[in-house]
């Protein structure tokens, strides 16, 4: 177990390092000059050269990359002399656009994206698994067919369509909710929930549809296992057969996709956040990409990768808890 964990953590570090390197390289080959971006529109040639030195852009690429990595773990000092700025651990650099530490930008927006992701996840698990398991238990009936047609329809609607329809229908026509403005959970839990209700719904619909199809399939498979027949032969009530014997094995495959999906969403949902005006990481990323704000793009990419690989690791460790045959 310890050995396994150590090996997995090492691999995790390797993946993150590779992602950081690739993202770094992509920016290096891009035609946009980071110094010009940082310097702004009214920039003299002299100032541009200063900025270049200040940002360390005069250094060779490997050196810049090494400095960047060191900064993450120990913090670093950017620039020299009177322009020197200390960037505290964990240092992901400064945004060229806003001159704020990337780490602070990420941490400011993480609660928004996490609120969106977690709320939507609760919603899509309830909807998706509910529909999937119901369909599986009523396989080939009208209920099953209706649910699966609904799932295909929901899965084929892009988020930007459902989002706009929700805004139009619920806010503009029905006037049930105000246009969402994000409120922190800690300030106003009710406002937090009511403002996130539509984004949650828009995001959850898509995922719920995919989860309904997935869970239907794996539940049908689980309920066809010989041990389900054994449970029935023992005279167990059908509810116990389904819940205790069927669901436990039927839901195991769902865990894998859920880990990856949630991990990916924690670092921001670009489209949903943009449409609903949520100040999350997804919107930060979009803005940074448009403006070639390399440190921010790099920071978001690394954070997203971090969430996904950690979620994967957690899922794998959970497998050992769920399935006694899995041992590390």
């Amino acid at each position: 177990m310890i050995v396994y964990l150590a090996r997995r953590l090492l691999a995790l570090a390797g993946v993150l390092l590779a992602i950081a390197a690739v993202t770094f390289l992509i920016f290096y080959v891009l035609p946009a000059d980071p110094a010009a971006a940082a310097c702004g529109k009214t920039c003299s040639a002299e100032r541009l050269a200063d900025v270049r030195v200040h940002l360390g852009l005069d250094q060779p690429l490997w050196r810049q990359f090494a400095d960047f990595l060191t900064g993450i773990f120990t913090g670093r000092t950017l620039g020299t002399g009177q322009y020197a700025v200390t960037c505290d651990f964990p240092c992901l650099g400064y945004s060229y656009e806003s001159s704020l530490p990337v780490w602070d930008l990420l941490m400011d927006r993480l609660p928004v994206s996490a609120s969106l992701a977690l709320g939507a996840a609760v919603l899509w698990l309830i909807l998706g698994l509910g529909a999937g398991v119901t369909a599986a238990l009523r396989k080939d009936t009208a209920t099953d067919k209706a649910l699966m047609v609904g799932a295909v329809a929901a899965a084929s609607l892009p988020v930007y369509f459902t989002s706009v329809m929700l805004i139009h229908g619920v806010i503009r026509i029905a006037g049930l909710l105000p246009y969402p403005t994000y409120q922190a959970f800690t300030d106003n839990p009710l406002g937090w929930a009511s403002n996130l209700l539509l984004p949650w719904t828009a995001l959850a619909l898509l995922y719920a549809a995919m989860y309904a199809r997935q869970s239907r399939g794996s539940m049908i498979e689980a309920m066809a296992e010989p041990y389900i027949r054994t449970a029935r032969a023992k005279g167990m009530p059908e509810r116990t057969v389904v819940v205790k014997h069927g669901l436990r094995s039927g839901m195991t495959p769902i865990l894998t996709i859920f880990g990856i999906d949630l991990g990916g969403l924690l670092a921001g949902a670009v489209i949903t956040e943009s449409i609903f005006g949520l100040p999350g990481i997804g919107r930060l990323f979009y803005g940074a990409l448009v403006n070639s704000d390399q440190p921010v793009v790099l920071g978001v990419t690394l954070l997203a990768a971090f969430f996904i690989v950690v979620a994967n690791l957690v899922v794998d460790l959970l497998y050992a808890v769920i399935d006694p045959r899995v041992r590390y």
Partner: protein
Amino acid sequence: MAAPLLEVRDLRVTFTTPRGTVRAVDSVGFTVESGRTLGIVGESGSGKSVTSLAVMGLHRGAVEVGGSVALAGQELTGLTERELGKVRGRRMAMIFQDPLSSLHPYYTVGEQIAEHFRVHFRSGRAAARRRAVDMLGEVGIPEPARRAGEYPHQFSGGMRQRAMIAMALACEPELLIADEPTTALDVTVQAQILELIARLQQERGLGVVMITHDLGVVARVAHEVLVMYGGRAVEQAPVDALFADPAHPYTRGLLDSLPRLDTADDEPLPFIPGSPPSLLLPAPGCAFAPRCPRAAERCTGERPEPAAYGDGTGRTVACHFAGVRAVEEAAR
């Protein structure tokens, strides 16, 4: 006279498939008495497993079951799932061919036995747990208290089938249906499992239905034998009579296909030519006619019904020529 432990009459099981209806079991009847073993023999697709599942009420999907299944006089067909749940696992239990996939991989063996006991006796967890350990001990699993906490994958094949038997008998059923319980096990373990079932049968006066394609198993454990072919009972007889004088050409073919010690090594093993009938398009006559060495014109047109055969020991045979052949052979 008291009702027999299990009485099945005119059992019919029909599946609806996209390609048409399939009558998997047709007009099958038999009885099992306490302390006795009925062997049901047949090849794959003969309807023997479907018969046992129908008796337990475990058939699923687009299935129609007709006829009568009575356990100690209580009619089971037509019971609601809820009512049947009180009988199933409590008064009749079943074990299956593959004990690994028949046990839930995520729960300990002890828990799977205990939950069975809890459902029917509404006992507490501790009592059910003790019962599980006792049962594991009774089926010959060493260190039952420790093994009860292990998972099925930590058991060997034979131990798993023992655990299945422990589970099946945890609620003291009167009838045990064993669907090919030794098929997935190697030969020495097979013998141990059969001995175990025989011992428990004697101790508890269990009625046993042993479903198998293995005539060796039948010869070893059964008192009566039902031979099935194409979803129908073709021959029913006490085990000794069946082996001594197989009346149906199919039974005869099965017995002839057994390797014997007294034939030469290089002599090819006899076999029944052809393949089992399609149940989707049943022929109007005898299902075995296309493969039968004795088939006459009558066989393809007119289906033989089970009829009494022999000296009044309750044998029945469904063959137009059952008696004729015996006469022929006697003359030889």
